[in-house]
């Protein structure tokens, strides 16, 4: 059994563009999901019932449906109901943001809830408003406490970008598939793809781990 890695070398630019798209899609999705999920998490933790009930439904729905289904529906079905055309990258971003925000909201909600009530009472006793207590006392501690879970959500985000291949987003998985079928050398191409993805993902989880170890004491009350 001989290996031929030349198709990879010949198409390195094509594959490199795929990596760039993967990174771009990951960043867009992660940032969007964090902002949306953070807002939803806080809304569920502190909001009135008419807000928390529909949000709970949204979060539980995203936990129940595979991300592949959300991607496919967003790209193929959503334009039909909304009457617009959605380019690949935008559809993938929208789907990933909506899906992952649900998980972010869950950890924000539980993180905020894990800070001891005594901390809130201490803040109020100092004369702070509820909003100030949340912003200055509860949220910083909650963020530190959920860092490990957040790191794993970041990791999942990057992995989920690979699924966007099914709606023809030209990210790295898609480019690898193209080269693999063109060159008839799937073994070499996919094995290399595995190594590249590993190199992308491993530092993210390790990095979050390291940051957490530095700041963990700030979240212990």
């Amino acid at each position, binding site marked *: 059994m001989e290996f031929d890695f030349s198709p990879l070398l010949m198409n390195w630019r094509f594959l490199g563009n795929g990596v760039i798209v993967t990174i771009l899609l990951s960043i867009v999705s992660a940032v969007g999901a964090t902002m949306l999920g953070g807002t939803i998490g806080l809304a569920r933790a502190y909001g009135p019932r008419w807000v928390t009930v529909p949000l709970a439904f949204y979060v539980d729905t995203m936990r*129940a449906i595979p991300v*592949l289904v959300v991607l*496919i529906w967003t790209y193929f079905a959503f334009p*039909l109901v909304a009457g617009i055309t959605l380019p690949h990258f935008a559809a993938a971003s929208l789907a990933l943001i909506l899906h992952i925000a649900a998980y972010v909201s869950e950890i924000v909600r539980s993180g905020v809830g894990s800070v001891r009530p005594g901390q809130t009472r201490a803040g109020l006793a100092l004369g702070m408003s509820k909003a100030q207590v949340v912003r200055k006392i509860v949220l910083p501690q909650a963020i530190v406490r959920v860092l490990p879970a957040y790191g794993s959500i970041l990791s999942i985000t990057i992995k989920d970008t690979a699924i966007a291949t099914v709606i023809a987003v030209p990210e790295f*998985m898609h480019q690898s598939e193209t080269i693999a079928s063109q060159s008839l050398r799937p073994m070499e191409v996919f094995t290399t793809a*595995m190594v590249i993805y590993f190199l992308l993902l*491993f530092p993210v989880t390790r990095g979050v781990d390291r940051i957490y170890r530095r700041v963990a004491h700030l979240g212990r009350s």
Partner: protein
Amino acid sequence: MNYDWSVIWDFRSELASGVWTTIQLTFATMAVAIPGGLTIMLLRQSRFRLLSWFGTFFTEFFRNLPLILVIYWVFYILPTLMPNVDFPPFATGLVALALGVSAYNAETFRAGVNSIRKGQTEAAMALGMSRWQVMRKVVLPQAFRRILPMLASTWVSLFKDTSLVSVIAVADLTYTALEIRAKNYRILEMLTAMAVIYWCLGYPQAKFVDWMYRKIGVTE
């Protein structure tokens, strides 16, 4: 634009069979991945450098890869490794999913075992128990409470991830729904039906996991 939602009813038996495949795949994968994960975790704790390195490598490698890539990779590597065997796509999907989930389970077991205070292990060792006796009589019974909800959560994720094997033409719910869509062009109807069916199956599972964490989960 007119929608014909009755096509969902027309194809209900195909969709049901897709659901059945999804369910079978989930059960079969977990049946392999629980002992698999336990084995990998024990390898990782082994005193032999080679075995513990392999356990760590396996866990870290498969936890840091997209599952869809693993599926493609297994799809192409299995026929090369065993050229005379004819692998049905279901088996290929099963192997790929089992590899990934075993790695996650190994990590779950490791976290559960590590959560038990060192003093408990020492007290058991001070009585003269062997490492294996310490695990079986003292550590694992206590780690169980932390491990079970995490396994339930992994189960739900696995159930959703089975949708990925549709890319190698395993006739699960996703593949079936997409095939029907290709035949009758009822895009919105079929895709919505697919989402709703997953929702109906996945929502109670997610709620069950929540219940489990509340009931027997350990809070710090």
